[in-house]
């Protein structure tokens, strides 16, 4: 949890910094824009007043101008006015005379009044102001000014507003950051918890999915799908390991028996030889089983795909037909072939040869004498279809999915020699080529159909093709 807490702290800090920075930028902008426009407005006002006062003076003389100043001071004017003579003597206004400066100026003023009783006097402190001065032809100086206190008050208000707002934002950011990152981490922690449960052996544990479709949810769904896949692979691996262990016990027991016989009860060289020959035969059978298993594993690893090339399957199937017609005949079967010429697919020649061989041999070995076997290859639309049809006993429907599994053997064929790997190998080869296998009832008999779809003949995409039985090859994929 330490890592999680530090992540919370980091995320929250980041959140707060971002919030504070955005508030600060906003503040600076408002501050700058407001000050500028207020200053400009004030300046325009003071200039207008100063100029109009000067105009009045020029037009009507000092007395009228002084009267105008008084009127303005009493109602609706600016904060400060001053009319002074060339020698600096005060004429009218409410501030003390200053040394004349023309145009806009920042200045500090002191209130000034000339009462009849009190005489001239200044009042109060210096105040900050901006003003506009005009010097007339006779040396009279006119000044209109405005207190900047209003500007400062506005600035202060802005500052206060932003301080309070910023503070509240930061607090909200801290709370929000904590809440968001804690929520995020809670979900990460749920993934962690699931991972720990699985590590502890609880393999069916899964990450909770909230069904709101966000990224974390999709991550959880993907993790679950991955776990499902791994679990099914592990189960099939477990299944295969126990199948291997189970199926190899019998030949190993027979091997041991042969060796024991040779050791204990063989009296003549002939007897000894026959026991050891039998032992060697058992060993060979075991080795064959192992090499078939390795071959399946190697095919399933998909590495052979790299060597795919155009294969003339017609020529290849003709060879198989020719080879096994004689074998079938010797065993009392009839093998007829119907092979369309000139069909090529992208694949592995050696493996396709083995696929055809296994299918035909399977039909020969697991049907009674007198069975008619048909071996066909043809094109349907753009799919290439290889079919082996027999009129033998067939495979019960509920068993059809299982015969593609390693070591699976029908009750009826338990006694015939074989490893139960032939069809598993066919399934692996078909899958490598993106082909689907269908086992169909032929009433009586069995149709095995391998369909190489047109689309996947160049780019094999295993397990995407609809097959008519529930026999999904992918289920048995391991290693």
């Amino acid at each position, binding site marked *: 949890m330490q890592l999680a807490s530090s992540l919370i702290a980091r995320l929250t800090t980041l959140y707060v910094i971002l919030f504070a920075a955005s508030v600060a930028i906003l503040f600076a902008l408002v501050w700058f824009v407001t000050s500028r426009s207020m200053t400009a407005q004030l300046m325009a006002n003071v200039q207008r007043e100063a100029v109009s006062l000067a105009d009045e003076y020029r037009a009507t003389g000092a007395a009228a101008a002084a009267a105008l100043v008084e009127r303005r001071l009493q109602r609706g004017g600016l904060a400060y006015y001053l009319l002074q003579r060339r020698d600096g003597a005060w004429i009218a206004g409410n501030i003390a005379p200053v040394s004349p400066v023309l145009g806009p100026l920042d200045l500090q003023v002191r209130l000034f009044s000339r009462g009849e009783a009190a005489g001239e006097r200044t009042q109060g402190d210096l105040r900050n102001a901006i003003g506009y001065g005009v010097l007339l032809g006779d040396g009279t100086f006119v000044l209109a000014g405005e207190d900047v206190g209003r500007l400062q008050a506005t600035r202060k208000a802005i500052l206060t507003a932003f301080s309070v707002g910023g503070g509240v934002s930061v607090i909200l950011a801290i709370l929000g950051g904590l809440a968001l990152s804690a929520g995020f981490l809670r979900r990460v922690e749920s993934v962690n918890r699931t991972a720990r449960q699985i590590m502890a052996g609880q393999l069916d544990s899964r990450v909770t999915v909230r069904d709101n479709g966000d990224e974390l949810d999709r991550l959880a769904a993907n993790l679950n799908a991955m776990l499902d896949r791994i679990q099914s692979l592990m189960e099939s691996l477990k299944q295969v390991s126990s199948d291997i262990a189970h199926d190899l016990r019998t030949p190993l027991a027979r091997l041991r028996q042969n060796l024991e016989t040779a050791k204990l009860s063989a009296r003549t060289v002939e007897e000894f030889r026959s026991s050891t020959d039998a032992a060697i035969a058992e060993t060979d059978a075991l*080795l*064959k089983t192992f*090499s078939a298993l*390795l*071959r399946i594993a*190697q095919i399933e690893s998909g*590495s*052979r795909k790299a*060597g795919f090339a155009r294969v003339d399957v017609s020529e290849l199937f003709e*060879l198989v037909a*020719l*080879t*096994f017609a*004689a*074998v079938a005949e*010797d*065993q009392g079967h009839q093998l007829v072939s119907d092979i369309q010429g000139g069909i090529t697919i992208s694949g592995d*020649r*050696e*493996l396709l*040869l*083995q696929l055809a*061989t296994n299918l035909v*041999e399977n039909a*020969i*070995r697991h049907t009674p004498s007198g069975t008619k076997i048909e071996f066909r290859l043809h094109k349907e639309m753009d799919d290439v279809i290889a079919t082996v049809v027999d009129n033998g006993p067939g495979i019960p429907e509920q068993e059809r999915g299982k015969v593609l599994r390693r070591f699976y053997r029908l009750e009826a064929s338990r006694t015939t*020699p*074989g490893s139960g790997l*032939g069809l598993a190998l066919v399934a692996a080869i078909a899958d490598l080529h993106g082909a689907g296998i269908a086992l169909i009832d032929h009433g009586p008999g069995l149709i095995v159909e391998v369909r190489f779809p047109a689309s996947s003949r160049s780019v094999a995409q295993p397990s995407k093709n609809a097959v008519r039985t529930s026999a999904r090859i992918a289920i048995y994929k391991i290693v």
Partner: protein
Amino acid sequence: MRILVIEDDRQTAQYLAKGLRQQGHVVEVADNGRDGLFLAAGEKFDVMVVDRMLPGLDGLGLVKTVRSAGVKTPILLLTTLGGIDDRVEGLEAGSDDYLVKPFAFAELMARVNALARRPPIAGADTTLKIADLEMDLLRRKVRRAGADIELTPLEFKLLEHLMRQTPRIVTRTMLLEQVWGFHFDPKTSVVETHMSRLRGKIDKGFACELIHTARGSGYVLRVPDATR
């Protein structure tokens, strides 16, 4: 023959050396890649039997090095890797044949013999003749004692292979590989079936049998009197 065995497993090396010596060959054994390479490059051998996995220098690397040094001695590669790609890799590296452990000694012997006396590529041969058996490769016709014999294309191929290898033994596996292109074990008696049909056509009705079954599950085509 002078045979070089490069094999690190002592038991296998002894088994090979003993068997080959019993057949009358002179055998040198190297138990690692470096010594093997030294012998292979420095001395003259008729055949080399090389294990694929070796300490010092890997078997494949050794074959490549030997070949790039211009040594043309036939090489039989031994391996525990029965994988399909491994065989191709071995042949591509420059070995001439490939045998997966474990194997029967007769199988090894047959392959060593086939390698040692592999004829230089006979381009001009259009007919093969053994005793009164004649094969016309151009017209795909077979005659024995002047009488035409009808063979299926497979039987023709099988007979051609036996005739080219005479008087050497060819094993069932060699026939499967070289005639059928099957690099796997069929579960039915493919070779036996076709061989018995071929014998029926070639030998049946003739006093002198040409095709013989050899001990260790192999076949040989030869004139009985001409044996060693």
